[in-house]
């Protein structure tokens, strides 16, 4: 009789452990699934933002790069930037994002971190979450213009003494 009770209790213990094991595996799988879904969602958001930045900065007909390319000495042009909540930044000091290939450049990046003059962190941020284009003759001054998705931010691009400067209007 006691043997029978022992066997039943053992079985119960086995069942309990088996269920725990299943639960743990299920939790692991769910955690990974949630991780992948969250990554997929934010990856898509980031990808869209990068594409918009690329269009504004480089590839559209009225992109900043094309406008700079068409500027004549002493000329100034203004343009309205929209579509994205990121920031237009310049890199003219020592540390620059990879895409700048060591030259002066303009970037549209997600976050602004260089308020505390931490250039390395900002460079890193633009490297990961940003789009850059080389503007070799960019004036050695800090550009930091916040862009907004719903409102157009007007900027002015001018060329003086062969140097390109960008200011918020």
């Amino acid at each position: 009789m006691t043997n029978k009770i022992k066997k039943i209790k053992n079985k119960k213990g086995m069942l309990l452990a088996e269920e725990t094991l299943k639960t743990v595996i299920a939790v692991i799988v769910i955690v990974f699934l949630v991780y992948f879904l969250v990554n997929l969602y934010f990856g898509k958001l980031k990808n869209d933002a990068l594409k918009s930045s690329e269009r504004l900065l480089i590839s559209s007909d009225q992109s900043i790069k094309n406008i700079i390319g068409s500027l004549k000495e002493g000329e100034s042009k203004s343009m309205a930037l929209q579509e994205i909540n990121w920031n237009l930044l310049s890199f003219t000091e020592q540390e620059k994002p990879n895409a700048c290939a060591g030259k002066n450049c303009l970037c549209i990046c997600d976050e602004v971190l260089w308020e505390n003059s931490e250039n390395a962190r900002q460079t890193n941020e633009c490297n990961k979450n940003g789009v850059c284009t080389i503007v070799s003759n960019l004036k050695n001054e800090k550009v930091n213009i916040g862009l907004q998705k719903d409102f157009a931010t007007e900027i002015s691009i001018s060329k003086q003494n062969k140097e390109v400067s960008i200011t918020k209007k």
Partner: protein
Amino acid sequence: MKNQRAELSTQQIVLMIILIASFLVIFFFLLRLGIGEKSEEQLCYNSVLQKSLFPKTSLQCYRNYICITKDGSCEELIKPEKIKVKSLNETYKILAEEMAKCWWTFGEGKVDYVGKDYFFKDKYCSICSQIYFDDSLENLEGVEDKKISKDELYDYLIKNDYSKDQTYSQYLLGTNDLGGLKKQIIENENNAEKIGTFGEIEIGKQYFNVMGIISERTNAVEIGIGVGVGVAGVVVALTPVGWVGGAIIVVGSAALGGGAGIGVSEIAALTTGGQGIDNEFMAPTLVEAESDKFKALNCYEILTYT
């Protein structure tokens, strides 16, 4: 009885720990395999094929950042893919692999991924990778004056196999005739000094591993021009100067003046016709980042994202 129940659950806990640990180990090795990098290449390749069929879709190709170094240091780039080398030959092998990877990703000259343009044939470039040659490479045997000879790189391409049946040079340029390629460089109209060399790579600088394709015009425009005005004159007017001569880059070098001309004549030798399509291609080559030579390529658009 209590002991027995505890023993069982301990066994199960051990099992669980083993299970989780082995999962983590497998996950770690999967990450180490660089599957992400491979899938990025595959993603780009798929988007190239997709664009050839559905021109409205967009390419999903990103530039890779690579640092070739001897001592493991890499000051110029932030978190690049570091590749340590011990000899020049290893450096050439890495460059050959990068060039071949680029050629494969963009369809090996068999795929038109830019569609047709209405009036002008435009040059579309793809910067597959940005390579920094670290200062430490100057200590490699055979490096003189902080420069690596590109002639030796092309020599490597003709002497080493890409696959069982072809060398890197045959795969990328369709020929193994290095002399012939150099002859094309000498004979190019921009090469006033008539020097038959592919040039040099300067250590401590960044280079683009870049390839290109020239778009075709839509038939409608060609027919319209032919019917309306008399083909020859107008077609020449609409086609970039120098295109008729067959060199991709002659336009840009002419625009920039003699400075870039000597270097650019190298590109003329790297121009190959498409396989089964009318587009012309520039085989992958190394050009200093944002140099006059790169500007002379006169790329209408860079297709790869930064």
